[in-house]
């Protein structure tokens, strides 16, 4: 399966009479976007704001971040099973508004969304401060249940991202990147001497709005399965997650999964990137056993030499991570795990809830308990009062001048377990 991603670089975003992309600027008709959101009768009002890199803006609470993309050639549409038909995507050509994003906000659960600062120390912790963001502020009708609000906001994000993506359909990309996955037998013939590597992508699926969708299927209802990496680039996997902000995978993360990017980069040079195995993180022990058994079984069946495993979230998913590790290692296949840490504010506590001696190659996205200080911003988009109650915040986190003292956990994408972040250690 072969996909060409055409990047159209976006350096600025502005409101205008007509939505279009011209000379690296994304122009957006605000009323069109509002009308699109308000098609859903679950919203009583909608507002749209801009947040550009370097502006003194805080967005809170952030639910999802979505990159606008559009299919130019090949079957299907972006976000299959959600807003496009269930067609197999991942081949042909897709255009990307690189440097732009749709950010959805709203008080859904309150404590399980995050913060994006566009300027200052907070901006250094989140990759989304580098993007030209269209921020959707959607207020639900009275009495709307939380899970209905989550779904409505999730779809508002996809619809607006699709609307913006469509502006790029007939544009000539600034850069084209080609990604190709051969069949198993072709791959063996092409690279007989290279180590074969698969990627186990763990998807948050604990329920109660900790959910991920694959072609529209709720991941908690699926057994571990395989997927072409390019399908993910076309939005086959999307986030429906209201969970700790620092290490949840937003839809943007799935579209731009850096593990997949790096494996493709090394494909045919130092390794043979076989495919992606997607496995869930459910709340029953039997499900955890079954899903990790299946990851190991598929890795064995594929005959791979090594597997990279990335976790999503923390706490009980640490057990899914360790089960995947132990069971895959027991098949004689090497594993490298990507996770993050909850090692206490001083960093001396046990980092993960579970552990095993076989987990001897681990990459950390950082310590989510680290306490940080965020200065006030000139403008806040959203509901700043939730700072005291979001995961990583505490009573007194929000100070009178608008500054914040909280754990790193509050920042969207800060300790991402795909490695889509900037933290490092010496």
């Amino acid at each position: 399966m072969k996909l060409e991603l055409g990047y159209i670089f976006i350096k600025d975003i502005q409101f205008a009479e007509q939505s279009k992309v011209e000379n690296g600027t994304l122009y957006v008709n605000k009323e069109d976007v509002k009308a699109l959101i308000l098609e859903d009768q679950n919203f009583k009002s909608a507002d749209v704001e801009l947040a550009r890199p370097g502006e003194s803006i805080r967005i809170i609470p952030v639910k999802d971040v979505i990159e606008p993309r559009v299919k130019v050639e090949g079957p299907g549409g972006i976000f299959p099973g959600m807003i496009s038909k269930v067609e197999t995507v991942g081949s042909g050509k897709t255009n990307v508004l690189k440097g732009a994003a749709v950010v959805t906000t709203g008080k859904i659960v309150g404590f399980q969304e995050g913060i994006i600062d566009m300027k200052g120390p907070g901006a250094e912790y989140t990759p989304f401060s580098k993007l030209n963001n269209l921020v959707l502020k959607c207020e639900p009708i009275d009495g709307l249940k939380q899970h209905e609000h989550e779904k409505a906001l999730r779809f508002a994000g996809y619809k607006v991202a699709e609307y913006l993506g469509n502006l790029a359909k007939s544009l000539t990309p600034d850069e084209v990147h080609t990604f190709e996955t051969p069949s198993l037998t072709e791959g063996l013939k092409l690279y007989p001497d290279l180590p074969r590597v698969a990627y186990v992508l763990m998807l948050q699926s604990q329920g109660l709005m900790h959910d991920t969708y694959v072609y529209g299927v709720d991941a908690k209802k699926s057994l571990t399965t395989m997927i072409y990496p390019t399908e993910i680039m076309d939005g086959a996997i999307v986030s429906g997650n209201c969970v700790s902000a620092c290490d949840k995978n937003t839809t943007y993360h799935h579209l731009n999964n850096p593990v997949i990017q790096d494996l493709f980069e090394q494909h045919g040079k130092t390794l043979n990137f076989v495919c992606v195995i997607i496995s869930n993180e459910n709340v029953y022990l039997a499900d955890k056993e079954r899903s990790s058994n299946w990851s190991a079984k598929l890795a064995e069946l594929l005959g791979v030499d090594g597997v990279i495993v990335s976790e999503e979230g923390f706490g009980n998913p640490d057990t899914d991570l360790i089960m995947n590790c132990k069971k895959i290692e027991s098949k004689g296949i090497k594993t490298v795990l990507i996770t993050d840490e909850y090692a206490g504010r001083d960093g001396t506590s046990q980092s993960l809830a579970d552990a095993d001696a076989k987990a001897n190659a681990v990459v950390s996205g950082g310590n989510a308990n680290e306490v940080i200080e965020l200065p006030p911003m000139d403008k806040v988009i959203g509901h700043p009062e939730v700072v005291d109650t979001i995961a990583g915040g505490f009573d007194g986190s929000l100070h009178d001048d608008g500054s914040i003292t909280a754990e790193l956990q509050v920042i969207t994408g800060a300790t991402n377990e795909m490695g889509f972040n900037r933290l490092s250690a010496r």
Partner: protein
Amino acid sequence: MHMCTIVPISLTVGANRIVPTIAIPHPLGDPSLSMEEEKDIRRKLLSRALKALQTEVSEQTVFED
């Protein structure tokens, strides 16, 4: 003693007696069942826990029944 759903975590952190429970969001019940059935589950798990507390152990022990 731990009553918990994710037994491997209890084993990792060194609990002596472990009674496995239903699921992380509802360890002692199951919202898909009726109240009577839920109470039955709860009573059984609690009885098992009380039995576990009265049982001498020499190593980490999971009380499956």
